[in-house]
């Protein structure tokens, strides 16, 4: 599998047109339905290779795209997502500097 190729599990004959937001492998139990005791084994079953992680991020990105950006009558929500997301991100990466602006000694 080189750069720009489709996932190995994707078979055009069986799956139809490629949907970048879809996972084409064998589906496991959704995380929301995993019982607390089984979380360890669930995590152990995950594929933690860099390709798989990038794939997961890419699928999440495309799911977000399909839901908020690509609809015909999309609203302002995707822009605000980017705005608030970057606010949170930059707050986090600057957090060590921002803590110097604390006003109170005791909490």
């Amino acid at each position, binding site marked *: 599998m080189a750069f720009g*190729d*489709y996932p190995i599990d994707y078979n*055009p*004959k*069986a*799956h*139809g*047109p*490629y*949907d970048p937001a*879809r996972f084409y492998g064998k589906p496991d139990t959704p995380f929301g339905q995993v019982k607390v005791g089984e979380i360890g084994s669930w995590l152990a079953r995950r594929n933690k290779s860099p390709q798989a992680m990038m794939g997961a991020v890419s699928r999440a990105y495309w799911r977000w795209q*399909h*839901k*908020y*950006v*690509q*609809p*015909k*009558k*999309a*609203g*302002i*929500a*995707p*822009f*605000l*997502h980017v705005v*608030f997301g970057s*606010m949170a991100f930059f707050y986090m990466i600057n957090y060590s500097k*921002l*803590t110097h*602006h*604390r*006003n*109170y000694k005791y*909490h």
Partner: protein
Amino acid sequence: MLSRAAILSGQTSKSLVASCLRATSTSSLNNQVAKTDDKPTEVGFQRPVRQEPGKVRLGFVPEEWFQFFYKKTGVTGPYTFAFTLSTYLVSKEIYVLEHEYYTGLSLIIMWVYGIKTLGPKLAAYLDKEIDEFEKGWNESREEQKAALSDQIKDEEKNQWSVEGQNVLVEAKRENVALQLEANYRERIIQVYSEVKKRLDYQVEKQNIERRITQKNLVDWVVAKVRSSITPDQEKQNINKCINDLSLLAKA
């Protein structure tokens, strides 16, 4: 790849380029993908359709997050959670209220005002643009469909008129049959009259022949009788006549 958001961010041109690239790339898998017009065989895999925009509250918070709270805490739960969490974060100064916080606060007020006032107008304008854009793309297809259905209608009309032609041909055939019948009868009459003429001629001819023969026979018999009368007999006859006359005169 056409959406209000895409028009705003100028993605349409980019996505067009991307789709062109995808359509013209020649890897075998791409070609295979391009060829899958038929339905996916595997169950649960449908051709992806364009979604409706996801529901959000407060302009950007996904509705699903509120639904997640709703089952456990009811309607006010998520708001209560957000309020209490932010109270905790602020009071412990985990979230620091530095100068940027107040900048953000004023920015949010301006954003909300701007979105509330300009948003509906912009949405209406962009909706119009999208509809026009989509119409532009669909127009030729719709026109072609209309032209094709017109052609189908014409074809059906032609077929209908051809059926009319069948009736016409039938009528013509009947007409020709009538003409043939008339001709046949005319000829029969002709034959009849011709035959009658010939027979009449024969009858007339036989009559004439008989008459002539009769006449000839009579002439011949008369001639024979005449020739058989001798002068002696004539003399006797005349004498007899004279005797008769004298007898008559005596009486």
